[in-house]
């Protein structure tokens, strides 16, 4: 089997389950690591208020730009640690509401591959489990129409099944559960507290792609479903308490740069929202510089 050396970049947006973007079907290998710096731009003019698609002339188009640092290191052949940290700016194109910029949430996950079945002359089936946490890295504003995030800590578990043929075609399915902690608000709610709960979320995604030791391309579809939650515009509903659900479709590609022994590469990715609840009907584009390294042998 050819070894896939990769990588893909982070589908980190302020509002989605973070670990989904962190976990893929490939292990780094002991002592191998990857560091990536990426720039993403996401924008939407229409958003789902509850499940109704609306626009808001007093906001116009909301653009969220982020610079993210991503790192993954193989601790053992079957155990990786992955982490990401984005700096995000969100701004509306119209109206008077202020833009916001902040270091958002750090996400760290451990990823373990307990199952690997080689099928002679066909390919490999593997099973991966991961557990991760995320927590805010600055005191950014949690409850605003234009926000960089909702300022909650979360715990995430997921399982992933991957099938890869010997010639590099692969398909994977993953499912995760994201448990979310309460958010401290700046204001008093009707219950007399200054807190709100954030609904947990379940997500599932599937991906197909092709990878060699150098090139990589995939296409994916993801659905996150919030477990309950309020809708935008409900009585006393803070933004963090909203149930955020969506279906998105996207792609990722990687191309190694013919420099420095091909240790650097460029990744691009894009995604589009198909449907949702309390979320922007957004389009996203990312480009990243990826550096692969060997830390120990």
């Amino acid at each position, binding site marked *: 089997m050819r070894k896939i050396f990769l990588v893909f970049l982070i589908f980190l947006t302020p509002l989605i389950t973070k670990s989904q973007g962190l976990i893929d079907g490939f292990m780094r290998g002991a002592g191998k690591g990857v560091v990536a710096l990426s720039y993403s731009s996401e924008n939407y003019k229409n958003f789902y208020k509850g499940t109704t698609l609306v*626009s808001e*002339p*007093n906001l116009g188009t909301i653009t969220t730009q982020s610079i993210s640092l991503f790192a993954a290191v193989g601790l053992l052949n079957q155990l990786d640690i992955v982490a990401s940290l984005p700096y995000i700016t969100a701004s509306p194109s119209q109206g*008077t*509401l*202020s*833009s916001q910029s902040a270091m958002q949430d750090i996400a760290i996950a451990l990823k373990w591959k307990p199952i690997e079945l080689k099928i002679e002359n066909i390919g490999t089936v593997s099973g991966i489990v991961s557990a991760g946490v995320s927590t805010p890295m600055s*005191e950014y*504003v949690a*409850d*605003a129409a234009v926000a960089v995030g909702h300022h909650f800590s979360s715990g995430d*578990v997921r399982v992933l099944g991957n099938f890869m043929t010997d010639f590099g075609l692969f398909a994977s399915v993953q*499912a995760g*559960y994201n*448990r979310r902690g309460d958010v401290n*608000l*700046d*204001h*008093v709610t*009707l*219950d*007399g*507290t200054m807190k709100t*709960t954030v*609904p*947990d979320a*379940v997500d*599932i995604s599937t991906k197909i792609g092709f990878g060699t030791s150098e090139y990589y391309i995939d296409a994916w*579809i993801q*659905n996150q*479903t919030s*477990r*309950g939650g309020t809708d935008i*515009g*409900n*009585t*006393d*509903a803070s933004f963090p308490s909203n149930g955020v659900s969506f*279906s998105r479709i996207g792609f990722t590609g990687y191309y190694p740069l013919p420099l420095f022994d091909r240790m650097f590469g460029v990744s691009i990715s894009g995604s589009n929202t*198909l*449907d949702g609840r309390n979320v922007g009907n957004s389009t996203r584009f990312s480009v990243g510089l990826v550096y692969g390294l060997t830390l120990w042998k």
Partner: protein
Amino acid sequence: MKRFTEYIKNFTSSWFLILSCAISIAIFNGCKEEISAPNYATLLPVSNDTTGGTWKTYLITSPDEIKLPGPSTTLSTEYQTELIAMKKAMSSRTIEQLNQAKYWASGAVLRWNEIARKLVAKYNVAPSAVIGADGKTSYPVLNAPFANPPIASRIYAYLSVAQYDALVATWNFKYKINRPAPNLIDNTIIPALDIPKLPSYPSEHSAIAAVSCEVLAFFFPSEKDYLVSLAMQHEESRILIGANVMSDITAGDSLGKLISTKAIARAKTDGASTAGKEDTLYYPHRTDGWKSIEIPISGASERPAMLPTWGKVKTWTVPDVEKERPVPPPALNSIEYKTALAEVKSISENRTREQWRIADYWADGGGTFTPPGKWNYIASNLIRKNNMSELRTARTFALLNMAIMDAGICCWDVKYYYYLPRPSQIDPSIKTSTGIPNFPSYTSGHATFSGAGSTVLEYIFPSEAASLKAQADEAALSRLYGGIHYRFDNETGVFCGRNIGAHAVILGRADGSP
């Protein structure tokens, strides 16, 4: 594309169901619980305010205006039958009914104030714009009332004043008739909860339930069924815990309903229904200056000014609204104005997290209980801390909310008299942390409400005066931090608010309460 989306949704949703249940049960042990109303201990007031029946009322001239049937004596067959019925009801009381009784027993006036705040929040939604066939934009109120701050202040005021008058009348009858509580007549009766040591006829709880239900149903007609079911539950709870027999309850209920008719009669003639019209300007000489910059949907014309003639609504405590008008704001071409605008701009560009926090803490915008509701919330905490009787609680809310409603009336008069543009209208580069309210800038409504509210509460809770004053000043300043007001809007607003609050304090000092 749409069909594809549907397909994906259907395909994935069955998976989610299985996965979400399995994973959540296995790992997180079930789902989170729903939020409910806060629990408080049963109210045991520091004083029963035995002279309360003589305190000065606002809707009725004296409690003698109210006629109640002379109650039967506790020795009568009638009373004894009621006592048996009460004991029977107690013996079949469910846990749920006991919990409901605990909810009401922790402070009935406080609970109805909480309910009013929740209704205000529910109805504090600006009407959506509709573009007609003729291309004109209208804003039909489909879910009346649109409980914006002045409208909310009026609801809180009528509710609180009616509760207060009902309780003064209740206290008057209680100490005139002096019917002992059931457990003092039959010592086999052990009330399920502590009950205040008050004569039991009429029941203060049923008076509060009836008057609150009727007044709130007048303002929120679509909530009538909900309110009636709450009031019934509230009244029954006192029988179920052994605090009152049926005639105590029915007498309180009739009394509450009688007072509510007085409140509603005043509300119908206070000018609010006509003053609320959004299409006319009370001050036609002010057609320049302020402009609406809120466009709710693409292609719509700007949302019209909120309540331009609210300054004409009948006040409770202020004898002459025009006398509360402050000096004019600085002229738009003056150095003073330009300096003030530059300060808003500077904050908008360098807003700190702490300034953002303060702006957000006091914003109380759409979907919330409004700034008048915030001062009711602040008062509620102090009332609980001080274990006030139901009557004194109602007096506190009545004085507070009369002052706050008057503050809104006076402030709206000032706003449309001077018609000063918002900072962002003059300099569109000024960015705000919160939405810009759709009415002129000078003076700040938040500041005026807060100056009035804190002045009343400082009088009632003198040991909290420093903290209350600081809160009012912070509430005022929060609007500068939000980028939607000049400093002078806030400082003048809180100054005017304090003067307005002083009128209510004069009434409070003269109402005969110790």
